[in-house]
């Protein structure tokens, strides 16, 4: 038999500044998940972790993306838990490659999974389950380099089933389109693994494009992917996902993504970029000034409204 530590209880949420939230909830040595599958990547929060100089983090992200190159180059990370080591169509993450291919400037520990396995690790974490079964991995060499991928006997038939263990971050940070002041957060477009990663974590920071009136949230409760009871801090950070995107608000900065691999291929240029854009700025607002208002405006999108549905309100019955 096995008991699991209960989640920490959440007090009614207080909206706060991002720097205060990172200072309060992200500590050296923590296991930190920054999730968002290409969409809604919490870059502003990642940058603030760099500004505050966190060290020895275990960094969890299905698709590490540029934010991983940045955090690792800033020496925040000792260990990477992920299922992909590149940046989608944009190519290599050179800081990660230097660490793994040449151990420059030092090694980086890696726990490697498939995408579905990472989804299931967060799911097991959120559900306080000791493992989740998966159909993948029969014949793959991934279990051979990851002793945490194990097997159980199928009690309903023959043979074994691969299982993966829970992933329970100390802190999960996500970015959402909007929330109310208590932390009920709504997301549309690609919703990624955010709900699972939030419930799996001990502490949760949600950055949002805007805080809206309670009634906006309560008019459409099915869009609330993250209920307030799971959230410790909600921070208003407009354009907080740049250079990734926010469905309906601004598009991915594809020029930035294309610029990154050649830049990050040169360690000195990468560090200079961090000094200028992250360590050399006091806040995300200053970072955005460096990127430039005109460029940011070019990322805006035209409108495509969802239409409304009706939730109804009871009348007295006959």
């Amino acid at each position, binding site marked *: *038999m*096995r*008991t*699991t530590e*209960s*989640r920490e*209880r*959440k007090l*009614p949420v207080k909206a706060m500044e991002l720097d205060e939230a990172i200072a309060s909830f992200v500590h050296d040595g923590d296991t930190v998940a920054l999730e968002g599958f290409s969409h809604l990547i919490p870059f502003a929060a990642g940058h603030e972790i760099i500004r505050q100089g966190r060290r020895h983090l275990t960094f969890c992200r299905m698709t590490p993306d540029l934010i991983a190159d940045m955090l690792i180059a800033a020496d925040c990370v000792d260990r990477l838990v992920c299922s992909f080591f590149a940046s989608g169509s944009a190519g290599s993450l050179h800081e990660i490659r230097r660490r793994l291919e040449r151990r420059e400037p030092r090694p980086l520990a890696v726990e490697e999974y498939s995408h579905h396995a990472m989804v299931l690790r967060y*799911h097991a974490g*959120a*559900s*306080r*389950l*000791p493992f989740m079964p998966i159909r993948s991995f029969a014949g793959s060499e991934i279990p051979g380099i990851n002793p945490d991928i194990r097997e159980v006997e199928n009690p309903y038939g023959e043979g074994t089933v691969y299982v993966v263990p829970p992933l329970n971050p100390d802190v999960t940070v996500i970015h959402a389109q909007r929330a*109310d002041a*208590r932390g*009920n957060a709504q997301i549309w477009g690609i919703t990624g693994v955010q*709900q*699972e990663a939030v*419930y*799996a974590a001990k502490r949760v920071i949600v950055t949002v494009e805007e805080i809206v009136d*309670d009634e906006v*949230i*309560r*008019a459409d*409760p*099915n869009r*609330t*992917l*993250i*209920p*307030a*009871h*799971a959230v410790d801090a909600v921070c208003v950070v407009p354009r907080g996902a740049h250079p990734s995107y926010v469905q309906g608000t601004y598009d991915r900065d594809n020029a930035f993504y294309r610029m990154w691999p050649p830049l990050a291929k040169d360690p000195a240029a990468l560090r200079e970029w961090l000094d200028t854009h992250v360590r050399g700025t006091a806040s995300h607002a200053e970072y955005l000034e460096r990127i430039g208002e005109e460029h940011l405006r070019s990322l805006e999108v035209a409108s495509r409204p969802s239409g409304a549905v009706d*939730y*109804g*309100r*009871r009348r007295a019955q006959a």
Partner: protein
Amino acid sequence: MSAAHMTGAPAGTAAAESAAVAEDYTQTELIVCAAAELLAGKRTVFAGIGLPTLAVDLAHRTLNRDIELIYESGVAGAHPEAMAEGIADSVVVSGAESVVSMQALFGYVLQGGNVDVGFLGAAQIDRHGSLNTSVIGDWEQPAVRLPGSGGATDIMANAGEVFVIIRRHDHASFPAELDFVTSPSPVAARASGRGIMPQGHGVSTVITPLGVLRREDRFGELVLTHTHPGVTVEQVREATGWELAVADEVAVTAEPTVEQVRLLREEIDTVRLYLR
């Protein structure tokens, strides 16, 4: 507990009147008010249907605005405009803060350890707070087929603590041995040696027509802590199918106030669905 504990009571003479003990109240109203008082300071409550609906609504109006109502249908942060006639009533959805998938509700919210208090009913309860909601008699051919688990087995295994409201207090409902263990106490779970131990306390509080029983120790027994007005300790012991432990000092349950009864009758259960 006195009416002075109640927050939000208006000041002055009217306040004194509404905080006074009600002159006529039913046993059901007494039970509901006792349950509501115990929700002070609780954060997330998994509300079942029936008397718990009334208790949670009353607590929310009088004691604890921060209480979050969670329903196993997937709703967290419900703000019903009318009394819910079921855990999946349309009024628990309209204006709610969130509706999540049942998998998220049972998996992440409940099994994930986010529910402070779960409310359960039962046909039978034993000395450690195991519950029977499955059958009276033998499962293969029951004398009475009861509703079964529903979410009860899951709530017992995962809520921080469980409150039980039970409408009978006699040897049939408080037997030495249950006809069937639907939702086991941590004591029964430990004894089985199988599966994953419950993450919470199990039953902490039982409110009956005769009094209130509590369990302080996760692996301990129910102890009589309150008798309702006019009930003696001896009556409760005789009505219980085992040698009931009794607290050193047994208090008398606070009677409902004028305001509590008014809220229950005129604002909460206006159709007398549960206040029967």
